[in-house]
């Protein structure tokens, strides 16, 4: 039963571009959905399994994006995959620094430290010249093995591939020694230590895996959009969005982040593109030129973060285990 459902989902995912490929807008949305699902799943390895909530995961996303684009801007003929690998190296270094400072402490410092590290990275990139500073980086041309990287389809499959890899790693971890250990750490760190678990080692392991996957996604994003700046790839808002997606779907479940992404990304898009505002105008409820109409047009786009805030509060208060948590016990 489960296998059939899984096959159907997989088939749909793979075949989707055939149906909506002509519509760049829809494909674009699906790429965002896949990316957010993968980001949250990667975050979930550390947050859901090990119980360590990183509030600064954007640092790894940005590390991948910036490393890749800087290298490609400097050495145009480099293979993008090599640049992605370098991105992973940079992200891993950041992860190891963070982990080695915080994971040996017993209090709840990881969340704060992760924000500090992310802000240090963001501000450094903003202030340095070779990273493009406030102007960001614009990638002129990129090619990989003759694939046309100007179209969207390659990126759809790229993001899908990373999502599949991330979910597979999650699944593998669940039934492996590392997975058991991470969950033990989440449940009770003292008990875990008394059972022979090296807390710092396993937390670092989870963080490294999570950071590497996140960095790959950042690199892909950079190649896809071709323009990055600190507000796009290193912002605290991105970190929060990743966590929120996992929470709404169900932290610690394998499919929770995917469900969360399927819900939140289209919702954010609807708000951001003023779909709601347009609908109200079309329905004749609001005149486009009236005060309210203008207000909505200017501001509803910003409202999507406000809606995120409201959803976060409601979720924590009434649905702390997320949507999937309603159906399954956290495993």
């Amino acid at each position, binding site marked *: 039963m489960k296998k059939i459902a899984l096959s159907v989902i997989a088939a749909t995912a793979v075949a989707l571009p055939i149906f909506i490929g002509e519509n760049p807008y829809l494909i674009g949305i699906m790429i965002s959905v896949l990316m957010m699902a993968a980001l949250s799943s990667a975050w979930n390895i550390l947050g859901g399994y090990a119980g360590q909530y990183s509030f600064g995961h954007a640092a790894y996303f940005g590390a991948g994006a910036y490393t890749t684009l800087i290298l490609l801007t400097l050495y145009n003929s480099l293979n993008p995959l090599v640049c992605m690998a370098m991105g992973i190296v940079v992200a891993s270094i950041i992860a190891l620094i963070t982990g080695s400072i915080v994971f040996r402490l017993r209090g709840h410092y990881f969340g704060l430290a992760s924000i500090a590290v992310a802000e240090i990275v963001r501000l450094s990139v903003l202030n340095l010249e070779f990273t493009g500073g406030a102007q960001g980086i614009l990638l002129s041309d990129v090619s990989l093995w003759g694939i046309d990287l100007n179209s969207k389809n390659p990126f759809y499959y790229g993001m899908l591939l990373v999502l599949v890899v991330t979910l597979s790693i999650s699944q593998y971890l669940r039934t492996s020694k590392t997975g058991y250990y991470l969950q*033990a750490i989440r449940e009770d760190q003292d008990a875990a*230590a*008394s*059972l*022979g678990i090296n807390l710092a080692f396993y937390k670092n392991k989870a963080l490294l895996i999570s950071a590497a996957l996140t960095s790959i996604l950042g690199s892909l994003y950079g190649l896809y959009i071709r323009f990055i700046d600190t507000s796009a790839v290193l912002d605290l808002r991105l970190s929060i969005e990743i966590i929120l997606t996992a929470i709404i779907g169900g932290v610690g479940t394998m499919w929770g982040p995917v469900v969360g992404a399927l819900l939140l990304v289209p919702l954010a898009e609807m708000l951001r593109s003023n779909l709601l505002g347009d609908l109200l105008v079309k329905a004749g409820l609001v005149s486009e030129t009236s005060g309210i109409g203008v207000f909505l047009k200017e501001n509803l786009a910003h409202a999507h973060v406000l809606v995120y805030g409201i959803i976060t509060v409601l979720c924590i208060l009434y649905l702390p285990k997320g949507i999937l948590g309603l159906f399954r016990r956290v495993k």
Partner: protein
Amino acid sequence: MIQHLLLISHVSKHFGGNVAVSDVSFAVEEKQIFGLIGPNGAGKTTLFNCITGFFPTTSGDVIFDNKKINTLRPDEVCKLGMARTWQRVKPLGSLTVLENVMVGAFSITNTTREAEIIAREQLQMVGLTDYTTKSAGSLSIGLKKKLELARVLATRPKMLLLDEICGGLNHTETDIILNIIRNIRIKGATIVFIEHDMKAVTSICDRIVVLNSGEKLAEGTPEEITNNSDVISAYLGGGHHA
């Protein structure tokens, strides 16, 4: 020179101005069942925490199997063969009973299959086979204590430190646990017991140390201890807890 399995040598633990343990020394021999008793607040659990690496000692050494361990981390202590249970049980609540014990088993194996086999063995030994798939958080206190025992046994320890394993149990449950412990000793492990229940302690221990206000008050066989007037007055006129 006699090699003790565990040597506590002039161990003291201060928390700021508060002296929790003061210059305590004793030795535990292989295959002994050793009791550590004393009134509430005597420093027994603090001493356990120092022995197992959760607190550093303020002074003094803990020597286990000829290695100085007081500077080691708790997981390193476990890897050397010393395992402990907790006064307030610590089940890994969202995991099943089987998964809980498997976490313990993973300290001596790397494969999930082997861990499962070891775990099932231990569950059978403590009599929890019927609860394998239940969530650990949902068990009653007596079963949680059994689970904790099974979990540490899965680490195949040379020495087991039990912190009030009989706490909160009725007489029947206590007898069952004590029998399991006797079996564990037969299989070659050494056990150190913190207990309040004097009857349990005197019925099973070979040797007992009494702590009071952080200091060692007395040491001896169960008979010597129950007849020791200092010990009796420390417990305020009785050796028995209801």
